[in-house]
């Protein structure tokens, strides 16, 4: 009977009030402090990133000139440049790409499109790929070192040796990325192709692979950019050599940008630290470009089914 006497506004008020306290729970001091801590942890990560970029820029800015790109290393920091390291990186990463991409994509296609998961061998391969992705990179250097000495190669500081180590290092990364790209292609595409009489391989080659190219490209570029920044396995192979010539083939001696940075970091003179900073900036610029390209490809070409 009270409903007739109560005015509608008052009724609404009574109903909405207890619900509103649920919202107010978000503004309790404990909840606010918690949210503040969350933002703080993200802030710390970005603060370090910004500090790192600024310090490296301040250290390296004096040496950012064409000399860095065109000159050979030298005992005089004023004269020294990273030309052989740049060319060496191009050789090593180019060779790595040629070796890894077909191998990694083929392995991923096998695992995703053809392999029977009920068979222990295929499950073992999957587990193994996961494990390989977590093996420390320096172990791949030891593997390549042992392999080369088994072949009787005395000079281990050759492009193909480094590329071998880097290939094995990023192979699992490319396999995992490619599998994800293949998995994103809906099974209707496969079924449609098979229903028209195409064979399993024709379906894979003409339908599934073209559809997953953007995903594969994104993953591959990210994997190669990881190889470009990697120094540990090449260090084990003895890539820390004073190079005063342009690397010119698979059997040529070489050094890479990260190794050159490591070398200059370890010297006492301030001038070499500036060179290390400038070379780091160069390397970071290339890596950011590669990452931007990968993100661009992902956003521009990736299909939503």
């Amino acid at each position, binding site marked *: 009977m009270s409903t007739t006497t109560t005015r509608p506004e008052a009724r609404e008020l009574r109903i909405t009030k207890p619900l509103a306290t649920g919202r107010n729970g978000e503004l309790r001091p404990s909840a606010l402090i*918690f949210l503040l801590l969350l933002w703080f942890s993200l802030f710390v990560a970005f603060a370090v990133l910004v500090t790192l970029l600024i310090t490296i820029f301040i250290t390296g800015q004096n040496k950012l000139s064409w000399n860095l790109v065109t000159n050979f290393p030298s005992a005089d920091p004023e004269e020294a440049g990273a030309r052989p390291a740049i060319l060496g990186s191009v050789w090593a990463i180019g060779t790595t790409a040629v070796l890894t991409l077909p191998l990694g994509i083929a392995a991923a296609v096998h695992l995703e499109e053809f392999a029977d998961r009920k068979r222990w061998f295929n499950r073992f391969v999957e587990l*193994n790929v996961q494990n390989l992705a977590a*093996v420390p990179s320096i172990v791949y250097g*030891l593997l390549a070192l042992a392999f080369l000495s088994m072949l009787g190669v005395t000079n281990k500081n050759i492009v193909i040796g480094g590329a071998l180590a880097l290939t094995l290092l990023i192979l699992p990364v490319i396999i995992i990325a490619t599998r994800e790209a293949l998995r994103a292609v809906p099974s209707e595409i496969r079924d449609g192709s098979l*229903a028209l009489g195409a064979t399993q391989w024709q379906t894979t080659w003409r339908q599934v692979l073209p559809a997953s190219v953007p995903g594969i490209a994104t993953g591959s570029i990210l994997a190669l950019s990881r190889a470009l920044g990697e120094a*540990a396995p090449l260090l*084990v192979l003895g890539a820390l050599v004073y190079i005063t010539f342009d690397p010119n083939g698979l059997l040529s001696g070489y050094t890479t940008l990260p190794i050159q940075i*490591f070398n200059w970091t370890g010297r006492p003179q301030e001038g070499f630290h500036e060179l290390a900073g400038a070379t780091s900036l160069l390397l970071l610029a290339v890596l950011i470009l590669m990452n931007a390209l990968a993100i661009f490809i992902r956003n521009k070409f990736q299909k939503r089914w």
Partner: protein
Amino acid sequence: MTTVAERQGGPATGRAPSPSSSFAGRRRPGEFLIKLGLRLAAAITVITTVGIVIALLVPSLSFFAEVSPFEFLFGTRWAPRFADASFGVLPLVTATLWTTVIALLVAVPFGLGAAILLAEYAKPRVRKVLKPLLEILAGIPTVVYGFFALQFVQGTVLRDWLQLPTGAFSVLAAGLVMGVMIIPTIASIAEDAMSAVPGALRQGSAALGANRMQTTLRVVFPAALSGIVAAVVLGISRAVGETMIVAIAAGSQAQLVSNPLEQGQTMTGFIANAALGDSRVGSLEYNTLFAVGLLLFLITLLINFISIRFVRRFREAY
């Protein structure tokens, strides 16, 4: 080969029930070769693992023929190049332990904080901007981190600003910077785990009057726990295996590290440093590299198996 068609319920590429079908027995030698090639590519990953094991085991065995495994594992003096050589790996292990623990003290709280923010609080548009920014940290070459650790963290922050009694190198500087490097690894996997928790659980919690913090800490976090543990375990494995930061900033003196301001040589740091010297193939020095490499490999393998187990558990939960 026919298993493929079976798995996807495809019509008839392989065995057809009646031999009268014209498609049935058609042999495609080209396709057979292609499939063989694909299978071979997958097998190469297994060959790599076998190769790693053999490559590490063979020189290690000749190392242990000269040095007893007991001395290697429990000796407290690491001096492989001295005249009175000594091969106790504990100094390398303690330095690795220090850098790993320091790195985790940085990476676990900040990584999980970032993950919770991204998974539970951030709007999709904000997440789309913040996540790639965070991943830039993972893309920075470790040699650049090492340079930063040595020049800025050790030289400027620890020595000049904080006036700490430390030399040119310390495991503290290396560990701190390594921790920052690992933040995105932990954040990314933990975020995946938390995003995989069904929304119904959050709605249920909110319906009982919990606010977002309570929902996150008491419902989402426990539900995603195995994925979060997997993220932390993977972080440990990355910290143990990281080379360039410790090779540059932790120093190269192998000693039992009792204080994070001291310098110390980690397992990876030793391999990197020793490889710089020219050691003859088959010499004891060369074999020592592989013995330490084998220990490192076994440790990360063990850690990784634990991680995979936890990942499986959180994937199967829902």
